């Protein structure tokens, strides 16, 4: 019989898993590679990913194939860790990983619908995760329109939030991708909050709320920056409609001042003086997304090292593993563009 405290194994396992990550020296070595083949070869032969890439042929592997394999390995780790979770708490872990994959798939399909190439969705669908998802490829593969998508999502929590983005223009239907994204992410965080409420108690819940509140706040900061930059004339009230629902309210003074900022630069200046932007240094201002990842990386690393709560460790580790994949993909892209190793290193989130 599995006892509830077997979940503590997740914390211990995550500490061990986190120990097997790419080191700064390995990243530096990767940045010195000349092409994807060399990168794949190095990852296969010299890093903890050798098992994942054992059957890869470095000479012919493509970056999207590499990405798919790395994501599959990450998904498998999630599945492995899930075995140790108490049955009543699995809802939270599933909600955190599975729901996000589902949302990313829906958004991917919306993107393809907007450019008129929905048939490409089958190729990009993560076959490895199909059995764990509530919306399978059997439904989504046949989708050719937004109405078809809504029909495929009938009965799921994603259907209603997306309903209002149905285009009224029959001749030239265009779906508001950003609207759908906000709606789905709001839905995601609402489900997550509900699952956390049901599954987590005491310190575990408090830590999770801290993590997710920070995550949402950072995502909002990014959204606001983009709105300031690309829609400088957008009124404050409309801007607020584009933001994710916060778990914890930002101080009114900060909210008012950042919404009222005239330019993206003034906005960044305000953000940098707030506590959310400790890691936003001058050289990362160019990419606020990078700054946000930096902050989250610092926090997640700290949680992995200190926390005793399985859920906190899990969420932090999933972020770190996502970051590792992102770093590898950035290196591949940067190497393709012929960037210098030193320049590439500056693009990576390493702690």
């Amino acid at each position, binding site marked *: 019989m599995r006892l509830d405290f077997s979940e503590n194994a997740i914390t211990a396992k995550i500490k061990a898993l986190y120990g097997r990550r790419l080191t700064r020296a390995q990243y530096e070595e990767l940045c010195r590679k000349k092409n994807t083949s060399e990168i794949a070869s190095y990852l296969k032969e010299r890093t903890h990913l050798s098992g994942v890439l054992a059957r890869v042929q470095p000479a012919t592997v493509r970056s999207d*194939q590499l990405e798919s394999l790395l994501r599959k390995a990450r998904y498998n780790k999630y599945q492995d860790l899930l075995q140790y979770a108490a049955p009543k708490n699995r809802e939270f872990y599933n909600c955190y990983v599975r729901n996000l994959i589902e949302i990313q798939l829906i958004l991917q399909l919306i993107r393809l619908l907007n450019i008129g190439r929905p048939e490409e969705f*089958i190729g990009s669908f993560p*076959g490895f995760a199909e059995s764990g998802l509530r919306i399978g490829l059997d439904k989504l593969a046949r989708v050719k329109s937004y109405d078809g998508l809504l029909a495929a999502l009938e009965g799921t929590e994603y259907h209603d939030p997306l309903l209002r983005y149905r285009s009224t223009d029959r001749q030239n239907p265009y779906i508001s991708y950003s609207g759908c994204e906000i709606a789905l992410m709001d839905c995601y965080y609402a489900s997550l909050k509900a699952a956390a409420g049901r599954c987590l108690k005491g310190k575990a819940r408090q830590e999770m709320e801290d993590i997710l509140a920070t995550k949402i706040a950072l995502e909002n900061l990014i959204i606001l920056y983009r709105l300031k930059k690309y829609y400088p004339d957008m009124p404050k009230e409309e801007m607020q409609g584009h933001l994710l629902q916060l778990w914890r309210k930002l101080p009114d003074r900060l909210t008012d001042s950042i919404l009222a900022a005239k330019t993206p630069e003034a906005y960044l200046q305000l953000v940098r003086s707030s506590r959310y932007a400790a890691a936003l240094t001058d050289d990362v201002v160019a990419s606020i997304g990078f700054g946000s990842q930096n902050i989250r990386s610092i926090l997640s690393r700290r949680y992995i090292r200190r926390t005793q709560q399985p859920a906190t460790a899990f969420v932090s580790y999933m972020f770190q593993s996502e970051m590792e994949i992102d770093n590898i993909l950035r290196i591949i892209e940067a190497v393709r563009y012929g960037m210098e190793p030193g320049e590439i290193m500056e693009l990576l989130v390493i702690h």
Partner: protein
Amino acid sequence: MSIEKMKLVKVTGNLYEMNAALTACFEGGCFHPEHIVQRAGAQGGYHPFEAANPYLPILSKLDQIAGECQVDFAQRQPIGRETLSTAAQLLLGLEDGLAKARFGQLPAGQCAELQRESGQLFSFVPLCEQNGVCWCIYTASPANIAQADQVFAQAGFSKTWEPDLSGDTVEDFAFEKELRQLLGQKQLLMAARERGSSAIEQLSHMESLNISLDDIFASKYLEVRFGRLPSDSYAKLKYYDDRLFFFQPLSREGDFHWGFCFTDKVHVAEVDEILSSLFFERVWVPEYIHGVPGQTFAHLHQAIEAADQELAATDVAMKETIENHYDMFSVIYTLVQYLSNSFELRRYVSIYENSFILVGFIPDSLAEPLKSRLLGLGESIAVELADHDSDKRFQAPTRLKNNFIVKPFEMFVDMYGVPGYGEVDPTSFLAWTYILLFGIMFGDLGQGLVIALLGLFLSRVKKMEFGRILTRIGLSAAVFGTLYGSVFGLEHLLDPFYTDVLGLPGKPVEVMDPETINTLLMAAITIGVAMIVLAMLINVFTGIRNRDWEKALFSNNGVAGLVFYSAVLAGAVSMLTGGPNLFTLPYILAFLVLPILIIFLKHPLGKLSRGQKDIKPEDGIGSFVIEGFFELFEVVLSFVTNTLSFMRVGGFIISHAGMMSVVITLTEMMQGSASIVVLILGNLFVMALEGFIVGIQSLRLEFYELFSRYFEGQGKPFTPVVLDSSTMAD
């Protein structure tokens, strides 16, 4: 227990004699060079020797050949040290283009005659002699080389190499062409073999196919792709049932399905795109594969066998070629490696016009012999021996000199830092206290002897320095185990020895006796106090020796700290043992307040002791007082914590005995051979666990409680440069 005394050596001389001087200094492996230009800057016109090593390209070429031919240099040709040194001196002219050289072999009988003539028309050095043949080298000026060649030709000299350092490229050696040809042949055969193996590997995925590949690829209307598809993607194929292609799986390997994909020529581009999105990896079937895959295997295997036979023949031919030229190759390699190594030594000298200067440290006992040897090398060479601190630009390096018992513990000292030249070498103190602490905490006769034997094995067989430490601490544990009467956790096995042989009432120390526990803990603290006091005394001694009065008198680990610590301890012990209360006002003022005040004012007092008049704190009085207060707080706290820290010594004695009593209880619960297994496993477990814990704790006590009081570890290690003598005969 000391740091070896050093002398500062300055060697100057003419450039022509530099090589000989460098060889004399470095071949003993006891000369620690200093870069004078780095230390002093480019003053007085001195500059570092910066020329590129002309022997490196030749050496790289030889290494490359050796690597490609997989030649083992274990049996290199030994050449005498003096001979190599003379040859190096001879070839100096080659570097400047003032001489030409020839390398080759000569009938051994001719050597004596040519050696007599050497020094006039040509210079000649026989390198080594084998089977009546002498490998030798001679040089002559460009004007005389033709004449010298004639003389040597008459003597039967056969030239095999003409060293040339003038060009950027290294000319091929005589034997190289033959070897390269064989190597090329070998590479072609290996490629053919690899191709065959790869074809077999591909065909293995088509084994179930009973149609000729020629028929498949000759299709007029169909396009065929062969390759592998990830299983995840294979499952997606059902969603493409409206597209004009189909995938015929032939075999499955891990996460991949191998097979053919068929489509028509019209849709091939679209299908390729779909396959690409599904991560299909196309494998090009080589043109030389024909027929039904199952039948083709035999042909391919035959081809591989043929290639293997040819490879073996080529290997034999290569081996013979190498064997034929081995002696020459080996002599040239030895000579060039020596020349290259001795050239690299010039990086340590500084040059001024036609003279050089070499500065370094050498152990005092070797200084005079080196001086005599250097002065005998040539008239231009001058040697100056000075005290280690005579030139403030150079910090004397530290070379520890310890007896064989404590020497292995230098490893622990190195972990912390290298003692400064003026410091006390802590190795001896660390070694004895470490041995003592480990023995006390891990006392068990049987387990101690096992650890000692393990250490012996590691040091003798595996050549691990740590093994020697294990031997010493294992024996210590065995001695204390005898005192505690514990053998593999059996607490009464030695009782007859104490009662019948020694005539004692029982074993000397009964660890698990409740009355003993307090005594053990108090004894542990007493040992700790003694060690802390000793550490402070070493600090005072070092301070006095270096005339550092701040460290010796005013610091928390100096006389002031020692007085304070001793006074507090004396007062506390007196009170606890029912003696008089020593904490009277004069006692407190004299032995507690005054030392604390001195420690508080150690920086200004230190400045005064050094004769400085400006004793005002740099950061202001306020900052000084605040910093001083917190520092004092930390000092007092550390006296308490450091002392109590030694309680763990007593704690581990009890914990060790406790763990072993659990093992013995478990053993008694078992019957027959199972009890022996439990006893052995339990002992192994406790030895591993306790061994690590006690080892680490002892080191922690050494580093944190003791080293922090008297050892700074800011020294520079003595790192002599050695002229590689692996290729030389003694």
